[in-house]
């Protein structure tokens, strides 16, 4: 009879690493999404080109390859990263590229009249963006951001391949130690699913909170 409680503790440790990665990756992705998304809408050609290159590169190559590049190739170029840093970097930059397109789409979906109203009120570009456009656009972005966060959560499983002890890695450890495959893998599948449900639930809650008072405004 296997002592499952100890192994379950191991898997919970993995879950903590997965959650940590998801949170840190999401923060980086959010920052990159706004930088690149706004960059694509910039007046300056250089910024637009830079943002487009970033987005196309990270959407065009596989997350898996990016992670391996960050972990195995960057040290050769003189940038030594721990597995956690490499994981957060690759995940954040990859998902950030997808989310940047969401930012761009949402900002562009805000009607012309809002921009005109900003000019009429004599708001500067930055003021108008911060106080009028982005609060409305953010609400449009939220549901897709939720999906992106779930994608990021699922992508964290890949970091187990660069020896970071996340859920998937710990499941492999348990599998190697007990010889039982069914139990650890079923457990982590359910844990991942619960985490994904938590994210979509949290995003829905945030959306309802932010949409309060906007009922009459949005078409």
């Amino acid at each position, binding site marked *: 009879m296997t002592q499952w409680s100890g192994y379950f503790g191991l898997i919970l440790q993995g879950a903590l690493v997965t959650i940590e990665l998801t949170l840190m990756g999401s923060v980086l992705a959010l920052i990159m999404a706004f930088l690149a998304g706004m960059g694509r809408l910039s007046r300056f050609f250089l910024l637009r080109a830079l943002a487009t290159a970033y987005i196309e*590169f990270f959407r065009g190559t596989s997350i898996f390859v990016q992670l391996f590049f960050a972990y195995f190739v960057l040290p050769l170029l003189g940038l030594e990263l721990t597995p956690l840093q490499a994981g957060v970097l690759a995940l954040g930059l990859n998902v950030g590229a997808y989310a940047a397109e969401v930012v761009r789409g949402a900002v562009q979906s805000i009607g012309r009249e809002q921009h005109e109203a900003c000019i009429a009120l004599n708001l500067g570009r930055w003021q108008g963006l911060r106080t009028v456009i982005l609060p409305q656009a953010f609400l449009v972005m939220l549901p897709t951001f939720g999906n992106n966060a779930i994608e990021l959560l699922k992508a964290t499983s890949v970091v187990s391949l660069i020896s970071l002890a996340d859920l998937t890695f710990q499941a492999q450890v348990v599998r190697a130690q007990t010889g039982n495959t069914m139990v650890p893998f079923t457990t982590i599948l359910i844990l991942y699913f619960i985490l994904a449900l938590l994210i979509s639930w949290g995003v829905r809650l945030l959306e309802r909170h932010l949409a309060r008072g906007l009922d009459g405004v949005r078409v």
Partner: protein
Amino acid sequence: MDWDWDFVRQILPTLIQGVKITILATLLGSVLAAIVGLGIALARRSPSKAVSRSVGWAAEFVRGTPLLVQLYFIFYVLPDVGILLPPLVAGVIGLGLHYGTYTAEVYRAGIDNVPRGQWEAAKACNLSAMQTWSHIIIPQAIPPMIPALANYFIAMFKETPLLSAITVLELMNQAKSVANTYYRYLEPITLVGAFFLAISLCSVVLLRWLERRYGKIER
């Protein structure tokens, strides 16, 4: 560490071996995903509540858990219950099932987009349910969703490196094995990245063309 063209020339044949497997896995996975997606979309419209609910939940579960863990599950757990699959078959099934749950949503939207009048006309012409689907609904629903489907197939293509985790000798695995043999990571991993970027950029052009050709919904 410097870039070495001689080394590149030396490893290129091995990498091309891997490219073939990568493309094969993508094609087979796409076909399976297209079929599975249609099956799920039809099952979710089933008049029986039990069928549509359970299929809906199963799809939700598959979509909320990482592909890597699903691949492990198919490759390592199924042999416990007596289903022993070769790596490539397990990989294609994993890709097909995972992306099938995504394409199901595309099919759902495509089917919902067929105007009500078409359903009524089919009924007026006394077509059976089977005839209505195969002659009226599906032929009209498919063309507008081709770009969205192609989008998921490209996404699947970028997920194929995960198959290396279940010992399929695709591009990533070949690159890793040459890297481990010669202890040079820079060239193999960079080439893999360049290859994925090249194919993705080409497929973006193809996608734009598909969008122009099929994307418009005629009313």
